[in-house]
């Protein structure tokens, strides 16, 4: 499987001693207490933890929806820890493909229009946008449903539209937040297979979940607890505590 490295650091994501402190009603909540790790291109990493472990906060920081209180976050050789709001919007548009538990599709727009949206904000002309969106929908096997609105699609189809939307702008990484959480197990399995396909195609995937079974299928998993990393290793081992799992392939693609 081919793999492209950035010019400087081989790591796509480099998180150094990141903290995130919230002030809720005069009280300090330390959601992240100095987290450090790296993710290379082509990796598929699960971030697991109980609710309240800080994994949602970490996902928001990784997704550039939020900035760390301290520490440094390098994404694709860019320090995004102190970027302005508008700069972060550009980074989100170019580097990150979001996949949400609740799909987060615009209900009044067709599947095609939904998939086009990231390219709209990139300023791409309508014709090229349309072609790329069609191609992305084909990748998730939905080309026959592209003129349907989300409420005319099944849950699995909606999530595949969301995945197409995440893929269409060719981001550096896909960031999925409980992508199977709102799906039945058969449909969830479909989506996981799709992730495996995407992983084999060389995409970098970060998957935030509380489901150990799902995390176990990822080559690598990071476990968070109380805002700190408590384990980082092969998915099966970290998620299920299975010490006989094959060693992690932390620094590269499969």
């Amino acid at each position: 499987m081919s793999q492209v490295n950035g010019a400087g650091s081989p790591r796509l994501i480099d998180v150094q001693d990141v903290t995130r402190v919230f002030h809720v009603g005069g009280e300090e909540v330390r959601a992240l207490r100095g987290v450090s790790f790296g993710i290379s291109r082509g990796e598929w990493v699960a971030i697991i933890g109980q609710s309240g472990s800080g994994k949602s906060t970490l996902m928001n920081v990784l997704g550039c929806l939020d900035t760390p209180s301290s520490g440094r976050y390098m994404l694709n050789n860019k320090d995004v820890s102190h970027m302005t709001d508008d700069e972060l919007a550009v980074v989100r548009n170019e580097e990150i493909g979001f996949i949400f538990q609740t799909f987060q599709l615009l209900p009044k727009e067709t599947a095609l229009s939904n998939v086009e949206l990231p390219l709209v904000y990139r300023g791409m002309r309508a014709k090229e946008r349309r072609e790329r969106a069609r191609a992305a929908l084909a990748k998730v096997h939905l080309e026959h449903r592209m003129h349907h609105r989300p409420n005319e699609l099944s849950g699995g189809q909606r999530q595949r539209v969301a995945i197409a939307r995440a893929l269409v702008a060719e981001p550096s990484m896909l960031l999925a937040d409980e992508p199977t959480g709102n799906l039945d197990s058969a449909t969830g399995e479909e989506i996981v297979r799709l992730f495996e396909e995407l992983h084999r195609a060389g995409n970098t995937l970060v998957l935030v979940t509380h489901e150990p079974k799902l995390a176990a299928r990822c080559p690598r998993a990071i476990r968070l607890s109380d805002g700190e990393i408590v384990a980082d290793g092969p998915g099966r081992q970290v998620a299920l505590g299975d010490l006989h799992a094959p060693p992690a392939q932390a620094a590269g693609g499969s």
Partner: protein
Amino acid sequence: MSKAVRVDVMEGARIAFFSLGANRMRTVLTTVGIGIGVATLLAIIGIIQGLNASFDKQLASLGSNTLQVSKFPWVIKGDWWMYRNRKNFTLPQVEQIRAQAPFIAAISPIVGRNGDVGFNGQQLSTVDVFGVTQEYFAIGSWQVMSGRSLTDADNAVTRPVAVIGATVAEGLFPGINPLGRSIRIDGRPFQVVGTLARKGKLLERDQDLAVMVPFKTFYSTFGKGRPFSISMAVDQGQDIRKAEEQLVGIVRRVRGTPPGAPDDFSINRPEQLAQTYEQLTGALYGVALGVGFITMLVGGIGIMNIMLVSVRERTREIGIRRALGARKRTIVVQFLMEASAVSAVGGLLGTIVGLGTAKVVSLITPLAADVQAGTIMGGVGFAALVGLLFGIWPAARAANLDPVEALRYE
């Protein structure tokens, strides 16, 4: 257009119109508020503009190069009795003025009264009967339609002849040629020697309900007690204001007004009527604008309210757009465009209703409504501007939403 601006404007416009279509009922209700404001403004402005236009036309019928020297001013300010005690003009004074003012193209004494004019059992009341000389017809731009105008010879021998206005001709001689007929003016016989082309109304007074007789005939028939004024036309191309200034000196000399004493006569110009008229409509304009602004304010608050609802409803949409790369500015533009589009639609509806109202008013009342193209553009543009202003706060709120919170919003 830079790429970022293109994204903001194109996508903003697309979303704005999409959203207007999606909430049709709400859009209509919101636009009504702005629409009423614009309609009120336009209807009132239309009626005032109509009044102005017809007044301008009426003034033009007097001739822009005419002056009238008289004991009385047209617009009386203060004590009427003050003017009454001024000395009357005399005919030799008219000739002296003519001799001393080279810029005068035509000059005529004019004396008038209201009278009844009858023919063959028919009678018209409150007809303006004027005593004038031959030159008068060149001053008020009167056109002889048939027959002839009055001559110096008519005046010299006090012939009982008359030139009649269009309304008199139509009223007394339906289907009959009036030339050579004998009419009675307050019981005195006059022979019709000419008819005049129609001039139209001046301040709701029919200028064609008039009869002209020779100046001297007027006095010999109706008595000497009445003072006369002096009408004159200055040369074309002569500055009327300068002419007026020079005329003041000439008339003072002719009348022997002592130096230092105030003028014992008035020089009247159509423009003075216009000034009085403008003072009147200026106040009306002010009230109209005030009412319009208040309605627009109410409409604008309606827009703001609906935009706040729209922002709340679309919190998740905003979160999604922000996550996918929309900048704050893009969101601001989106909501501003939506707000001004709603307002502009209201402005358009209001324009149609306002123009319709003005039109109806002009049909069922003597008020003439007239709306200029600029006013229509102004109405729509102003409405859009109101939408823009009242959209700023909701748009800023939308853009300042935390994307993480917005995505979680149920």
